[in-house]
């Protein structure tokens, strides 16, 4: 986790550092017999699983264990046990742990590992143990470059999370967001990116103009975002690997709210003309655009379904902002939100089972989820101002921005049950987060 202070400018760092290769080898997976321990992420009352994560042996071993501990703890599904409680010390990754020592401190799972640096390569062997059944659940080896140690720790976190919850992990990911500094009048808004745990923050724009609504492509190395200057707005594509930046073109009126299609080949966005906003989609190869809505109401905040066949969007054609779904060619529009209040910012889960949204009721804002047919609406948060939900790639966790009256926006996370709500591990002020897919 980053120890940056809010007032200090973020450290400039190459954003593509994280791309150096990571290799994964399965060394010795135990019998695929069902684990005795498992976590059901769908239950509202799950008890966090007590887990022990002693410092790995070798260089960076303690740091790697700390990053894993932070990830698992923040998920709310794990309760890492403090190192001072450990009875067995100096574990050897090649030898079974002394299970009674770990039972004695009520650990249900144990992660141990060994770091080796050889010929400029970092190799990390780790094991996940079920303490009560005395079984090895995972035995994996990652190799990478030494500066990539944090990503190795995130990969291990993902492996442990997946093995114990049955859901894909979401730790080896990044967040692109809008960093906000200064007072409320003429606040500086800068595009920024960081690891999901707040590490390695860096700026992508210079803060001399407003940026809004960044979104990742499914390739995870390209983002789209909107810039807003007094002269007008523009939508950009930005490749994080090559730093190549290009506008998607000139339009009469304002353009905003860009979103990639799941295959990365199209961008849906809003075009405003004469005060009316409609949704368009551009084929990025041919650069041809098609207009999808032509209603006099506000149509904006389009979000594709994971299979690319449908789009959920926000419209006030019925008098108040509500959520609508249409086919991705603009046909078959139907309203899906019917509760009282104002619904905006729909975001289709990458897994497909839910649509997240912001709902405004009276003087309060909520982040909520509903099924794509509008059923099963649940409000997960309540505050003075919550907005801009974005899904972790496994569809189990949402990040959003929260403001207290008069305060700067902060990034928060909540799980899809609404039970695990906490500030994101980023100490600065930020809004409009967008969660990347899992890195490769």
């Amino acid at each position: 986790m980053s120890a940056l202070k809010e007032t200090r400018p973020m450290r400039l760092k190459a954003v593509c550092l994280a791309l150096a290769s990571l290799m994964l080898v399965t060394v010795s997976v135990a019998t695929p017999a069902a684990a005795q321990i498992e976590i059901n992420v769908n239950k509202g009352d799950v008890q966090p699983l007590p887990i022990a994560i002693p410092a790995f042996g070798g260089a960076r071993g303690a740091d790697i264990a700390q990053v894993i501990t932070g990830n698992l703890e923040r998920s709310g599904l794990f309760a890492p046990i403090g190192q001072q409680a450990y009875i067995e010390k100096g574990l050897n990754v090649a030898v079974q742990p002394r299970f009674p020592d770990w039972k004695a401190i009520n650990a249900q799972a144990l992660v141990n590992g060994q770091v080796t640096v050889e010929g400029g390569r970092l190799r990390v062997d780790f094991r996940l143990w079920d303490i009560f059944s005395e079984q090895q659940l995972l035995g994996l080896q990652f190799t990478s470059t030494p500066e990539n140690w944090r990503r190795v720790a995130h990969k291990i976190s993902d492996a442990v999370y997946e093995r114990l919850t049955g859901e894909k992990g979401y730790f080896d990911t990044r967040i692109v967001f809008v960093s906000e500094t200064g007072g409320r009048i003429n606040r500086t808004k800068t595009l920024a990116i960081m690891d999901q745990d707040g590490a390695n923050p860096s700026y992508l724009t210079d803060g001399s103009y407003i940026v809004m609504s960044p979104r990742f492509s499914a390739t995870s190395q390209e983002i789209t975002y909107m810039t807003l200057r007094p002269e007008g707005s523009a939508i950009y594509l930005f490749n994080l690997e090559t730093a190549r930046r290009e506008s998607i073109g000139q339009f009469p009126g304002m353009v905003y709210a860009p979103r990639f299609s799941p295959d990365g080949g199209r961008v849906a966005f809003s075009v405003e003309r004469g005060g009316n906003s409609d949704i368009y989609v551009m084929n990025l190869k041919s650069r041809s655009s098609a207009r999808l809505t032509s209603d006099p109401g506000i149509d904006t905040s389009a979000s594709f379904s994971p299979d690319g066949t449908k789009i959920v969007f926000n419209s006030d054609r019925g008098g108040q902002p509500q959520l609508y779904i249409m086919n991705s060619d603009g046909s078959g529009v139907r309203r899906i939100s019917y509760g009282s209040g104002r619904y905006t910012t729909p975001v289709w889960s990458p897994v497909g089972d839910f649509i997240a949204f912001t709902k405004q009721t009276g003087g309060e804002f909520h982040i909520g989820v509903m099924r794509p047919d509008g059923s099963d609406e649940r409000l997960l948060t309540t505050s003075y101002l919550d907005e801009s939900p974005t899904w972790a790639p496994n569809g189990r966790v949402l990040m959003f921005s929260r403001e207290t009256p008069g305060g700067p926006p902060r990034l928060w996370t909540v799980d899809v049950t609404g039970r695990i709500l906490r500030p994101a591990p980023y100490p600065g002020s930020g809004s409009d987060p967008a969660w990347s897919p899992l890195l490769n």
Partner: protein
Amino acid sequence: MSFSTKHALRLALVTTAALSMAACASKPKPGPGVGPGPGPGYPSQPGPGPGVGNVVPGSIQDFVVNIGDRVYFDFDQYDIRSDAGPVLDAQAQWLMRYQGVQVRIEGNADERGTREYNLALGARRANSVREYLVSRGVSPARISTVSFGKERPIDPGTSEDAYQRNRNGHTAITGGAR
């Protein structure tokens, strides 16, 4: 796969780009008319007058001080309110007198809405002001519009008064003033 030379070059490229961006970073300066301006109850001048004090007729200051450069809207609405009509009538008369002046109508929203929706709402407000001025004879070629949504509040407060002030259409002179 190893950390290739090609990759290292890209890395250097990104680092250089980031550094040069940082070098030219600067805080945007507040433009004219931005700041705690007259509230909704501010008495507007009925028309272009001789000006106050040293204000040069036909100047930006003349427009801001003697005419009023902002009109206000109700929550989630974009129709021109009755109290905004006289201000916009005066703006139109002033613009008809000073034909060389170009304006940009900036639509603004309060923070009690989400970012993209408010951008759309601000665009509607800017367009309402534009249409009103055009209906009073101002050439549409002299008027551009933009929406700042809720990104550029003029009042940092969180009271209903502050929200009201932040729901506005701002007529900014972009050229041709004396």
